[in-house]
């Protein structure tokens, strides 16, 4: 049995969801792969839970749900996540702080600190990946540790690991897909119900599918960030957010959706890179019988490859449990090798 000591940095919806998934799946994973995942530290904004002999991840999850993580017996008030990362005897850091696409912080510093103290990083945080992909990749390589971020693109949907583990012999020629569940939900509802944008947006906000400030999703920024990550990680490009042409969905009207539908199309916010040209995010007409025409809040990606032709995967792009599937997949793949 291989014991793996884990730090979870950022204990919000994703971070605490991963703790819960680790707790629930610990036996399954140790039986199947001979790896025992043990959480030894949790970093929050105002302090940390530090426990070298192991934290009951489910207990931490439950405390977080009650807003009482600081009541944990191992809680250290005011200890920063950076100090936790640098000081803890751990093998791997799960970086799950909120995405900041302007500075990448605090995630960027967390990741750099992890690499420089020889810890692998698994993350769902798009900010640092969008801003400093090459720097992070090089630092990880220099320190001989792994850097995995399946959860940063498309939530549960396997894309990066699919390319790395299964499509190894293929050259990826193009990538296109729906990478934002919020936009997909809004456009699907507008189209099927004939409702105006503002109405469906409010509904999505009530359901928790859209944020109070929906800009990041509906202006296409989130899709563009994911496209940047795919371009750098899969296509070996060196692009950042400013290299993407971005148009969001705020101008889409029920009339436009109706006209599209009458001729056999739906309108979807599509992120696309073909032949290493400039990445583009824009609303597009998608034939109703096309593999990319998935409804609801689903995500979908189609990869154009030289040997396998078109490969399309679809799945849930958000949600704590779904995202933890990708994070656990990254954790296992690091130690299975």
């Amino acid at each position, binding site marked *: 049995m291989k014991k793996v000591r884990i730090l979870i940095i950022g204990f919000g919806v994703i971070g605490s969801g991963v703790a819960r998934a680790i707790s629930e799946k610990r036996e399954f994973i140790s039986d199947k792969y001979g790896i025992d995942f043990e959480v030894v530290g949790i970093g929050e904004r105002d302090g940390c839970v530090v426990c070298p002999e192991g934290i009951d991840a489910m207990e931490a999850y439950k405390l977080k749900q009650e807003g009482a993580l600081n009541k944990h017996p191992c809680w250290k008030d005011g200890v920063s996540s950076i100090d936790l990362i640098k000081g803890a005897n751990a093998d791997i850091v799960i970086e799950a702080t909120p995405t900041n696409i302007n500075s990448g912080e605090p995630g960027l510093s967390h990741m750099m600190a992890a690499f420089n103290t020889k810890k692998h990083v698994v993350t769902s945080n798009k900010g640092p990946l969008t801003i400093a992909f090459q720097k992070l990749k090089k630092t990880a390589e220099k320190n001989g540790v792994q850097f995995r971020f399946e959860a940063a693109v498309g939530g549960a949907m396997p894309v990066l690991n699919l390319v790395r583990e299964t499509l190894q012999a293929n050259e990826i020629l193009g990538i296109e897909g729906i990478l934002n569940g919020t936009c997909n939900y809004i456009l699907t509802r507008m189209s099927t119900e004939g409702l105006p944008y503002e109405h469906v947006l409010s509904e999505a906000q009530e359901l928790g599918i859209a944020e109070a400030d929906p800009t990041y999703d509906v202006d296409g920024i989130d899709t563009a960030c994911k496209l940047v990550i795919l371009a750098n990680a899969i296509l070996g490009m060196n692009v950042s957010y400013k290299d993407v042409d971005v148009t969001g969905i705020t*101008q889409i*009207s029920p009339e*436009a959706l109706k*006209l*599209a539908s009458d001729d056999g199309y739906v309108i979807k916010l599509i992120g696309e890179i073909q032949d290493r040209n400039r990445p583009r995010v824009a*609303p597009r007409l998608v*034939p109703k019988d096309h593999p990319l025409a998935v409804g609801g809040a689903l995500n979908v990606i189609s990869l154009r490859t030289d040997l396998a032709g078109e490969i399309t995967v679809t799945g849930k792009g958000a949600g704590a449990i779904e995202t933890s599937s990708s994070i656990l997949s990254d954790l296992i793949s690091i130690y299975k090798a």
Partner: protein
Amino acid sequence: MNLELKDMPGQLVLALQPISEFGGNIVSVLHQRDKKTPRGLIPVQITFEMDGEKLKELINRMKSNGITIAQIGEDRLREKATMVLIGHIIHSDIRDTIDRIDSTRYAEVKDLAVSMPGVDQHSAARVVINAAGKKEMQNAIQLLRDIAREKELLLIESIEEA
């Protein structure tokens, strides 16, 4: 193009050779050896793409090769693309938009459906464009992109044209 060939060796080559000589691209050849015409000739249906201006010369060459041309049909604009525009489509002079596509001569607006929800609200239009070939279609889409940018319209292209 429907041709009628004599039932003797080398006739099909005589019919096809001039097409490639004039830079044509043969799409399909349907050679029905078992179906003779009342005159005892073999019907052949050929589909090809070529510069329309050379068609007359081609026909002359075929005739001098002894080929009987029964019928010629021309499909000038083979490519079709559907797009949607959103914005002040009518007030930004829709006629000018159409004219600028049509005046290229290699592409034209084939169908237009407009929906106008209210006086001050944005309209939507579904535009179907036909073009001579794939390259011409890309040029027509680029032209429409430029027009949309100039007139502050949102152009929604189909993923099929990527």
